[in-house]
Protein backbone atom coordinates (compact mmCIF):
# COMPACT_ATOMS: atom_id res chain seq x y z
CA UNK A 1 0.00 0.00 0.00
CA UNK A 2 1.29 3.45 -0.90
CA UNK A 3 0.63 5.57 2.19
CA UNK A 4 -1.39 8.78 2.14
CA UNK A 5 0.61 11.66 0.56
CA UNK A 6 3.55 9.34 -0.12
CA UNK A 7 5.04 9.70 -3.60
CA UNK A 8 5.51 6.83 -5.95
CA UNK A 9 7.88 6.66 -8.92
CA UNK A 10 6.08 5.68 -12.11
CA UNK A 11 6.84 5.55 -15.81
CA UNK A 12 4.31 6.97 -18.22
CA UNK A 13 4.54 6.12 -21.90
CA UNK A 14 3.60 9.45 -23.47
CA UNK A 15 3.84 10.25 -27.17
CA UNK A 16 6.28 7.39 -27.73
CA UNK A 17 8.63 8.42 -24.90
CA UNK A 18 8.98 7.01 -21.40
CA UNK A 19 8.52 9.74 -18.80
CA UNK A 20 9.78 8.99 -15.27
CA UNK A 21 7.71 10.94 -12.78
CA UNK A 22 7.25 10.95 -9.04
CA UNK A 23 3.58 11.38 -8.15
CA UNK A 24 1.14 11.15 -5.31
CA UNK A 25 -1.61 8.61 -6.07
CA UNK A 26 -4.21 11.41 -5.83
CA UNK A 27 -2.67 13.42 -8.65
CA UNK A 28 -4.83 13.47 -11.74
CA UNK A 29 -3.40 12.36 -15.06
CA UNK A 30 -4.33 15.75 -16.55
CA UNK A 31 -2.29 17.62 -13.93
CA UNK A 32 0.70 15.27 -14.21
CA UNK A 33 0.77 15.56 -18.01
CA UNK A 34 0.74 19.35 -17.75
CA UNK A 35 2.99 19.96 -14.74
CA UNK A 36 5.40 17.04 -14.73
CA UNK A 37 5.58 16.31 -18.47
CA UNK A 38 5.10 19.90 -19.68
CA UNK A 39 2.36 18.93 -22.10
CA UNK A 40 0.23 22.06 -21.96
CA UNK A 41 -1.90 20.92 -24.88
CA UNK A 42 -3.83 18.94 -22.28
CA UNK A 43 -6.44 21.56 -21.47
CA UNK A 44 -8.15 21.52 -18.12
CA UNK A 45 -11.67 22.90 -18.42
CA UNK A 46 -14.44 21.85 -16.07
CA UNK A 47 -12.32 19.34 -14.10
CA UNK A 48 -15.48 17.36 -13.38
CA UNK A 49 -15.52 14.94 -16.28
CA UNK A 50 -18.00 16.85 -18.40
CA UNK A 51 -16.34 19.13 -20.95
CA UNK A 52 -13.81 16.77 -22.57
CA UNK A 53 -11.13 19.47 -23.02
CA UNK A 54 -8.64 17.22 -21.17
CA UNK A 55 -9.20 14.31 -23.58
CA UNK A 56 -6.09 12.29 -24.38
CA UNK A 57 -5.76 8.93 -26.11
CA UNK A 58 -5.15 5.88 -23.91
CA UNK A 59 -4.05 2.98 -26.11
CA UNK A 60 -5.51 4.91 -29.04
CA UNK A 61 -8.94 5.57 -27.54
CA UNK A 62 -10.17 8.90 -26.11
CA UNK A 63 -10.48 9.21 -22.35
CA UNK A 64 -10.78 12.16 -19.95
CA UNK A 65 -7.43 12.68 -18.25
CA UNK A 66 -9.13 14.59 -15.41
CA UNK A 67 -11.10 11.45 -14.50
CA UNK A 68 -8.07 9.27 -14.06
CA UNK A 69 -5.23 9.21 -11.59
CA UNK A 70 -1.78 9.24 -13.17
CA UNK A 71 -0.92 5.98 -11.38
CA UNK A 72 -3.74 4.29 -13.32
CA UNK A 73 -2.05 5.08 -16.64
CA UNK A 74 1.01 2.95 -15.96
CA UNK A 75 1.40 0.30 -18.65
CA UNK A 76 -0.70 2.18 -21.21
CA UNK A 77 0.29 4.22 -24.26
CA UNK A 78 -0.75 7.86 -23.94
CA UNK A 79 -1.09 10.30 -26.83
CA UNK A 80 -1.58 14.05 -26.42
CA UNK A 81 -2.13 16.66 -29.10
CA UNK A 82 1.62 17.42 -29.05
CA UNK A 83 2.22 14.12 -30.89
CA UNK A 84 -0.15 14.80 -33.76
CA UNK A 85 1.64 17.37 -35.86
CA UNK A 86 3.91 20.41 -35.87
CA UNK A 87 3.15 23.99 -36.86
CA UNK A 88 4.85 23.32 -40.21
CA UNK A 89 3.36 19.91 -40.73
CA UNK A 90 -0.12 19.58 -39.29
CA UNK A 91 -1.94 16.30 -38.95
CA UNK A 92 -4.69 16.07 -41.61
CA UNK A 93 -7.26 16.41 -38.82
CA UNK A 94 -5.61 19.62 -37.59
CA UNK A 95 -5.32 20.94 -41.15
CA UNK A 96 -9.03 20.23 -41.70
CA UNK A 97 -9.98 22.07 -38.48
CA UNK A 98 -8.03 25.07 -39.77
CA UNK A 99 -9.53 25.00 -43.26
CA UNK A 100 -13.12 24.37 -42.13
CA UNK A 101 -12.94 26.99 -39.34
CA UNK A 102 -13.54 24.24 -36.78
CA UNK A 103 -12.32 26.42 -33.92
CA UNK A 104 -12.64 29.91 -32.54
CA UNK A 105 -11.05 30.27 -29.09
CA UNK A 106 -9.31 26.92 -29.45
CA UNK A 107 -9.68 25.74 -25.88
CA UNK A 108 -11.66 22.61 -26.73
CA UNK A 109 -9.64 21.93 -29.87
CA UNK A 110 -6.96 19.50 -28.59
CA UNK A 111 -9.71 17.27 -27.18
CA UNK A 112 -11.81 17.59 -30.31
CA UNK A 113 -8.89 16.81 -32.59
CA UNK A 114 -7.84 13.75 -30.58
CA UNK A 115 -11.38 12.36 -30.38
CA UNK A 116 -11.79 12.90 -34.12
CA UNK A 117 -8.42 11.32 -34.86
CA UNK A 118 -9.30 8.18 -32.86
CA UNK A 119 -12.63 7.96 -34.68
CA UNK A 120 -10.99 8.17 -38.12
CA UNK A 121 -8.36 5.59 -37.15
CA UNK A 122 -11.17 3.13 -36.40
CA UNK A 123 -13.71 4.27 -38.98
CA UNK A 124 -12.10 6.13 -41.94
CA UNK A 125 -15.43 7.12 -43.45
CA UNK A 126 -17.92 8.09 -40.72
CA UNK A 127 -21.27 9.65 -41.50
CA UNK A 128 -22.37 12.91 -39.91
CA UNK A 129 -24.49 11.23 -37.24
CA UNK A 130 -21.56 9.05 -36.14
CA UNK A 131 -19.32 12.11 -35.95
CA UNK A 132 -21.83 13.99 -33.82
CA UNK A 133 -22.32 11.03 -31.48
CA UNK A 134 -18.56 10.51 -31.18
CA UNK A 135 -17.94 14.17 -30.36
CA UNK A 136 -20.77 14.26 -27.81
CA UNK A 137 -18.27 14.11 -24.96
CA UNK A 138 -16.41 17.23 -26.11
CA UNK A 139 -18.07 20.57 -25.47
CA UNK A 140 -17.43 23.70 -27.55
CA UNK A 141 -18.91 27.02 -26.44
CA UNK A 142 -17.90 28.99 -29.56
CA UNK A 143 -18.65 27.29 -32.81
CA UNK A 144 -22.07 25.70 -32.52
CA UNK A 145 -20.39 22.45 -33.69
CA UNK A 146 -21.36 22.63 -37.36
CA UNK A 147 -17.88 23.65 -38.52
CA UNK A 148 -16.32 21.02 -36.27
CA UNK A 149 -18.44 18.32 -37.89
CA UNK A 150 -17.51 19.77 -41.28
CA UNK A 151 -13.84 19.62 -40.26
CA UNK A 152 -14.03 15.93 -39.38
CA UNK A 153 -15.75 15.15 -42.69
CA UNK A 154 -13.04 17.12 -44.48
CA UNK A 155 -10.34 15.30 -42.49
CA UNK A 156 -11.79 11.96 -43.56
CA UNK A 157 -11.67 13.10 -47.19
CA UNK A 158 -8.08 14.36 -46.81
CA UNK A 159 -6.94 11.10 -45.26
CA UNK A 160 -8.59 9.10 -48.04
CA UNK A 161 -6.83 11.32 -50.60
CA UNK A 162 -3.47 10.90 -48.84
CA UNK A 163 -3.95 7.13 -48.72
CA UNK A 164 -4.73 7.06 -52.43
CA UNK A 165 -1.65 9.09 -53.30
CA UNK A 166 0.48 6.93 -51.04
CA UNK A 167 -0.80 3.75 -52.68
Amino acid at each position, binding site marked *: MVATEERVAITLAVNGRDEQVSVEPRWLLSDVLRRECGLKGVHVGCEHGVCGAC*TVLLDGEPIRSCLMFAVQAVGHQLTTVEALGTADHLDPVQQAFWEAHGLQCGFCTPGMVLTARALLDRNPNPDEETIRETLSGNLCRCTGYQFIVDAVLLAAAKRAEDAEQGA
Partner: protein
Amino acid sequence: MTLAAFAYQRPRSLAEAVEAMAEAPDARWLSGGMSLLPMMKLELAAPPALLDLSGVEDLRGIRDEGDFLHIGAMTRHVELARDPAVRRDAHLASLAAERIGDPQVRNRGTVGGSLAHADPAADLPAALLALDAEVEAVSARGRRALSVQDLLLGPMMTALEPDELIVAIRIPKHTGHRQAYTKVPHPASGYAVVGVAVAIHEEGGRVRQAAIAVTGVALKAFRAARAEAVLAGQAVDQEVLAEAAGLVCDGQDVLGDVYASAAYRRQLAQVVTRRTLEGLR
Protein backbone atom coordinates in the same frame (compact mmCIF):
# COMPACT_ATOMS: atom_id res chain seq x y z
CA MET B 1 -7.35 20.01 -8.98
CA THR B 2 -5.85 18.07 -6.11
CA LEU B 3 -8.18 15.68 -4.35
CA ALA B 4 -8.11 14.69 -0.71
CA ALA B 5 -5.22 12.31 -0.12
CA PHE B 6 -5.72 8.56 0.03
CA ALA B 7 -3.59 5.46 0.35
CA TYR B 8 -3.33 3.40 -2.81
CA GLN B 9 -2.72 -0.18 -3.79
CA ARG B 10 -2.95 -2.03 -7.09
CA PRO B 11 -3.45 -5.71 -6.27
CA ARG B 12 -2.19 -8.25 -8.81
CA SER B 13 -4.76 -10.97 -8.16
CA LEU B 14 -8.23 -11.47 -6.76
CA ALA B 15 -6.78 -13.11 -3.64
CA GLU B 16 -4.50 -10.13 -3.10
CA ALA B 17 -7.42 -7.71 -3.61
CA VAL B 18 -9.63 -9.49 -1.08
CA GLU B 19 -6.76 -9.65 1.40
CA ALA B 20 -6.00 -5.93 0.95
CA MET B 21 -9.64 -5.07 1.65
CA ALA B 22 -9.64 -7.22 4.77
CA GLU B 23 -6.61 -5.27 5.99
CA ALA B 24 -8.04 -1.84 5.10
CA PRO B 25 -11.80 -2.19 5.59
CA ASP B 26 -12.50 1.51 4.94
CA ALA B 27 -10.97 1.29 1.48
CA ARG B 28 -13.03 1.62 -1.70
CA TRP B 29 -12.63 -0.35 -4.90
CA LEU B 30 -11.46 1.72 -7.88
CA SER B 31 -12.71 0.30 -11.16
CA GLY B 32 -13.22 2.65 -14.12
CA GLY B 33 -13.58 5.64 -11.78
CA MET B 34 -16.24 7.30 -13.95
CA SER B 35 -18.53 7.86 -10.95
CA LEU B 36 -16.09 7.60 -8.05
CA LEU B 37 -13.75 10.36 -9.29
CA PRO B 38 -16.55 12.90 -9.86
CA MET B 39 -17.89 12.04 -6.39
CA MET B 40 -14.44 12.58 -4.88
CA LYS B 41 -14.11 15.89 -6.70
CA LEU B 42 -17.45 17.04 -5.29
CA GLU B 43 -16.37 15.75 -1.86
CA LEU B 44 -19.33 13.39 -1.78
CA ALA B 45 -16.80 10.63 -1.24
CA ALA B 46 -13.44 10.80 0.53
CA PRO B 47 -12.15 7.26 0.75
CA PRO B 48 -9.06 6.88 2.98
CA ALA B 49 -7.71 4.22 0.64
CA LEU B 50 -8.33 3.05 -2.92
CA LEU B 51 -7.76 -0.47 -4.20
CA ASP B 52 -7.21 -0.17 -7.94
CA LEU B 53 -8.64 -3.25 -9.67
CA SER B 54 -7.00 -2.71 -13.05
CA GLY B 55 -4.27 -5.25 -12.34
CA VAL B 56 -6.63 -8.11 -11.46
CA GLU B 57 -6.75 -10.39 -14.47
CA ASP B 58 -9.60 -12.52 -13.02
CA LEU B 59 -11.99 -9.58 -13.42
CA ARG B 60 -11.52 -9.38 -17.18
CA GLY B 61 -12.93 -11.08 -20.17
CA ILE B 62 -16.19 -12.33 -21.62
CA ARG B 63 -16.69 -16.11 -21.68
CA ASP B 64 -19.32 -18.45 -23.07
CA GLU B 65 -20.47 -20.80 -20.32
CA GLY B 66 -23.13 -22.83 -22.11
CA ASP B 67 -26.45 -21.31 -21.13
CA PHE B 68 -24.78 -18.21 -19.73
CA LEU B 69 -22.38 -15.46 -20.73
CA HIS B 70 -19.81 -14.67 -18.08
CA ILE B 71 -18.89 -10.97 -18.16
CA GLY B 72 -15.86 -10.01 -16.06
CA ALA B 73 -16.66 -7.08 -13.78
CA MET B 74 -13.86 -4.94 -15.26
CA THR B 75 -15.31 -5.28 -18.78
CA ARG B 76 -15.51 -1.76 -20.21
CA HIS B 77 -18.83 -0.48 -21.58
CA VAL B 78 -17.25 -0.19 -25.02
CA GLU B 79 -16.28 -3.87 -24.91
CA LEU B 80 -19.79 -4.90 -23.89
CA ALA B 81 -21.20 -2.79 -26.72
CA ARG B 82 -18.95 -4.34 -29.37
CA ASP B 83 -18.44 -7.93 -28.23
CA PRO B 84 -19.84 -10.33 -30.87
CA ALA B 85 -20.95 -12.96 -28.32
CA VAL B 86 -22.82 -10.37 -26.27
CA ARG B 87 -24.41 -8.92 -29.39
CA ARG B 88 -25.59 -12.38 -30.40
CA ASP B 89 -26.68 -13.86 -27.06
CA ALA B 90 -27.52 -10.86 -24.87
CA HIS B 91 -28.01 -8.08 -27.38
CA LEU B 92 -29.88 -5.89 -24.90
CA ALA B 93 -26.73 -5.50 -22.79
CA SER B 94 -24.85 -4.20 -25.86
CA LEU B 95 -27.68 -1.86 -26.81
CA ALA B 96 -27.73 -0.31 -23.33
CA ALA B 97 -23.93 -0.14 -23.11
CA GLU B 98 -23.66 1.83 -26.34
CA ARG B 99 -26.05 4.47 -24.95
CA ILE B 100 -24.05 5.10 -21.76
CA GLY B 101 -22.61 8.61 -21.38
CA ASP B 102 -20.21 9.40 -24.21
CA PRO B 103 -17.23 7.63 -25.82
CA GLN B 104 -14.78 8.79 -23.15
CA VAL B 105 -17.00 7.34 -20.42
CA ARG B 106 -17.59 4.09 -22.31
CA ASN B 107 -13.86 3.64 -22.85
CA ARG B 108 -13.18 3.69 -19.10
CA GLY B 109 -16.40 2.81 -17.26
CA THR B 110 -16.95 -0.81 -16.27
CA VAL B 111 -19.93 -3.11 -15.96
CA GLY B 112 -19.17 -4.04 -12.36
CA GLY B 113 -18.57 -0.42 -11.42
CA SER B 114 -21.88 0.73 -12.87
CA LEU B 115 -23.81 -1.95 -10.99
CA ALA B 116 -22.02 -1.36 -7.71
CA HIS B 117 -22.59 2.39 -8.00
CA ALA B 118 -26.34 1.79 -8.56
CA ASP B 119 -27.26 5.16 -9.97
CA PRO B 120 -31.08 5.12 -10.32
CA ALA B 121 -30.83 6.56 -13.85
CA ALA B 122 -27.99 4.35 -15.14
CA ASP B 123 -28.56 2.36 -18.32
CA LEU B 124 -27.07 -1.05 -17.55
CA PRO B 125 -29.25 -1.93 -14.53
CA ALA B 126 -32.37 -1.85 -16.72
CA ALA B 127 -30.86 -4.09 -19.38
CA LEU B 128 -29.42 -6.55 -16.86
CA LEU B 129 -32.71 -6.70 -14.93
CA ALA B 130 -34.60 -7.49 -18.12
CA LEU B 131 -32.05 -10.19 -18.97
CA ASP B 132 -32.40 -11.82 -15.50
CA ALA B 133 -28.69 -11.39 -14.91
CA GLU B 134 -26.96 -12.21 -11.66
CA VAL B 135 -23.75 -10.98 -10.11
CA GLU B 136 -21.03 -12.98 -8.46
CA ALA B 137 -19.46 -11.27 -5.45
CA VAL B 138 -16.46 -12.16 -3.30
CA SER B 139 -15.12 -11.13 0.06
CA ALA B 140 -12.84 -12.68 2.66
CA ARG B 141 -15.90 -14.68 3.76
CA GLY B 142 -16.28 -16.37 0.40
CA ARG B 143 -18.22 -16.14 -2.82
CA ARG B 144 -21.95 -15.68 -3.42
CA ALA B 145 -24.33 -15.10 -6.29
CA LEU B 146 -27.23 -12.70 -6.19
CA SER B 147 -29.67 -11.54 -8.83
CA VAL B 148 -29.45 -7.98 -10.13
CA GLN B 149 -32.99 -7.65 -8.78
CA ASP B 150 -31.75 -8.45 -5.25
CA LEU B 151 -28.57 -6.41 -5.70
CA LEU B 152 -30.31 -3.07 -6.28
CA LEU B 153 -31.80 -1.64 -3.09
CA GLY B 154 -32.16 2.06 -3.88
CA PRO B 155 -30.27 5.11 -5.15
CA MET B 156 -26.54 4.35 -4.79
CA MET B 157 -27.48 1.47 -2.48
CA THR B 158 -26.84 -2.19 -3.10
CA ALA B 159 -27.00 -5.42 -1.11
CA LEU B 160 -23.19 -5.67 -1.30
CA GLU B 161 -21.33 -5.60 2.00
CA PRO B 162 -18.77 -2.76 2.14
CA ASP B 163 -15.89 -5.20 1.61
CA GLU B 164 -17.56 -7.22 -1.12
CA LEU B 165 -16.46 -7.02 -4.73
CA ILE B 166 -18.46 -7.86 -7.85
CA VAL B 167 -16.23 -10.18 -9.86
CA ALA B 168 -18.55 -11.03 -12.73
CA ILE B 169 -22.02 -10.73 -14.19
CA ARG B 170 -23.72 -13.85 -15.51
CA ILE B 171 -26.33 -13.32 -18.20
CA PRO B 172 -28.65 -16.15 -19.29
CA LYS B 173 -28.46 -16.34 -23.07
CA HIS B 174 -31.33 -14.64 -24.84
CA THR B 175 -30.35 -15.73 -28.34
CA GLY B 176 -33.23 -15.10 -30.73
CA HIS B 177 -35.22 -13.00 -28.25
CA ARG B 178 -36.26 -9.65 -29.65
CA GLN B 179 -34.57 -6.95 -27.64
CA ALA B 180 -34.44 -3.19 -27.56
CA TYR B 181 -33.36 -0.35 -25.30
CA THR B 182 -34.85 3.12 -25.69
CA LYS B 183 -33.54 6.03 -23.72
CA VAL B 184 -34.61 9.62 -23.40
CA PRO B 185 -31.41 11.18 -22.10
CA HIS B 186 -31.19 14.27 -19.99
CA PRO B 187 -29.69 16.78 -22.45
CA ALA B 188 -26.89 17.85 -20.09
CA SER B 189 -25.99 14.79 -18.05
CA GLY B 190 -26.81 12.08 -20.57
CA TYR B 191 -28.44 10.02 -17.83
CA ALA B 192 -31.82 8.48 -18.55
CA VAL B 193 -34.87 10.62 -17.83
CA VAL B 194 -36.56 7.42 -18.91
CA GLY B 195 -34.88 4.25 -20.14
CA VAL B 196 -36.85 1.18 -21.15
CA ALA B 197 -35.28 -2.22 -21.81
CA VAL B 198 -37.36 -5.01 -23.31
CA ALA B 199 -36.71 -8.63 -24.24
CA ILE B 200 -39.53 -10.61 -25.80
CA HIS B 201 -39.52 -14.28 -26.69
CA GLU B 202 -42.30 -15.43 -29.01
CA GLU B 203 -43.25 -18.89 -30.19
CA GLY B 204 -46.00 -19.69 -32.64
CA GLY B 205 -47.14 -16.09 -32.73
CA ARG B 206 -47.57 -15.87 -28.95
CA VAL B 207 -45.41 -14.26 -26.29
CA ARG B 208 -43.74 -16.96 -24.22
CA GLN B 209 -41.62 -14.65 -22.15
CA ALA B 210 -41.75 -10.89 -21.78
CA ALA B 211 -39.30 -8.81 -19.79
CA ILE B 212 -39.64 -5.04 -19.42
CA ALA B 213 -37.30 -3.06 -17.16
CA VAL B 214 -37.26 0.67 -16.57
CA THR B 215 -34.56 3.06 -15.35
CA GLY B 216 -34.57 6.75 -14.48
CA VAL B 217 -38.17 6.68 -13.31
CA ALA B 218 -38.03 5.48 -9.69
CA LEU B 219 -35.45 5.26 -6.91
CA LYS B 220 -34.04 2.15 -8.57
CA ALA B 221 -34.45 0.35 -11.87
CA PHE B 222 -37.42 -2.00 -11.79
CA ARG B 223 -39.20 -4.75 -13.70
CA ALA B 224 -42.66 -3.77 -14.91
CA ALA B 225 -44.36 -6.95 -13.71
CA ARG B 226 -47.96 -6.01 -14.54
CA ALA B 227 -47.06 -4.88 -18.03
CA GLU B 228 -45.18 -8.14 -18.59
CA ALA B 229 -48.20 -10.12 -17.35
CA VAL B 230 -50.43 -8.42 -19.93
CA LEU B 231 -48.15 -9.60 -22.73
CA ALA B 232 -47.59 -13.15 -21.50
CA GLY B 233 -49.30 -15.77 -23.63
CA GLN B 234 -50.80 -13.18 -25.95
CA ALA B 235 -50.79 -12.91 -29.69
CA VAL B 236 -49.56 -9.35 -29.63
CA ASP B 237 -51.49 -6.61 -31.38
CA GLN B 238 -51.63 -2.83 -31.07
CA GLU B 239 -54.25 -2.98 -28.33
CA VAL B 240 -52.29 -5.42 -26.14
CA LEU B 241 -49.14 -3.35 -26.49
CA ALA B 242 -50.96 -0.18 -25.52
CA GLU B 243 -52.49 -1.88 -22.48
CA ALA B 244 -49.10 -3.21 -21.35
CA ALA B 245 -47.40 0.17 -21.87
CA GLY B 246 -50.10 1.90 -19.83
CA LEU B 247 -49.18 -0.26 -16.84
CA VAL B 248 -45.42 0.19 -17.03
CA CYS B 249 -45.14 2.40 -13.92
CA ASP B 250 -47.80 0.49 -12.00
CA GLY B 251 -47.05 0.40 -8.27
CA GLN B 252 -44.03 2.70 -8.61
CA ASP B 253 -43.40 5.96 -6.81
CA VAL B 254 -42.45 7.96 -9.92
CA LEU B 255 -39.73 10.60 -9.48
CA GLY B 256 -40.29 14.24 -10.29
CA ASP B 257 -37.57 16.86 -10.54
CA VAL B 258 -36.93 20.27 -12.04
CA TYR B 259 -36.46 18.76 -15.51
CA ALA B 260 -39.31 16.24 -15.56
CA SER B 261 -42.31 16.22 -13.22
CA ALA B 262 -43.63 12.87 -11.99
CA ALA B 263 -46.69 13.15 -14.23
CA TYR B 264 -44.54 13.93 -17.27
CA ARG B 265 -42.10 11.14 -16.49
CA ARG B 266 -44.91 8.60 -16.08
CA GLN B 267 -46.43 9.65 -19.40
CA LEU B 268 -43.01 9.55 -21.06
CA ALA B 269 -42.35 6.06 -19.70
CA GLN B 270 -45.66 4.83 -21.11
CA VAL B 271 -45.04 6.34 -24.53
CA VAL B 272 -41.44 5.09 -24.67
CA THR B 273 -42.54 1.59 -23.63
CA ARG B 274 -45.28 1.46 -26.28
CA ARG B 275 -42.93 2.67 -29.02
CA THR B 276 -40.19 0.27 -27.95
CA LEU B 277 -42.59 -2.68 -28.03
CA GLU B 278 -44.03 -1.56 -31.39
CA GLY B 279 -40.51 -1.24 -32.76
CA LEU B 280 -39.87 -4.92 -32.08
CA ARG B 281 -42.71 -6.06 -34.32
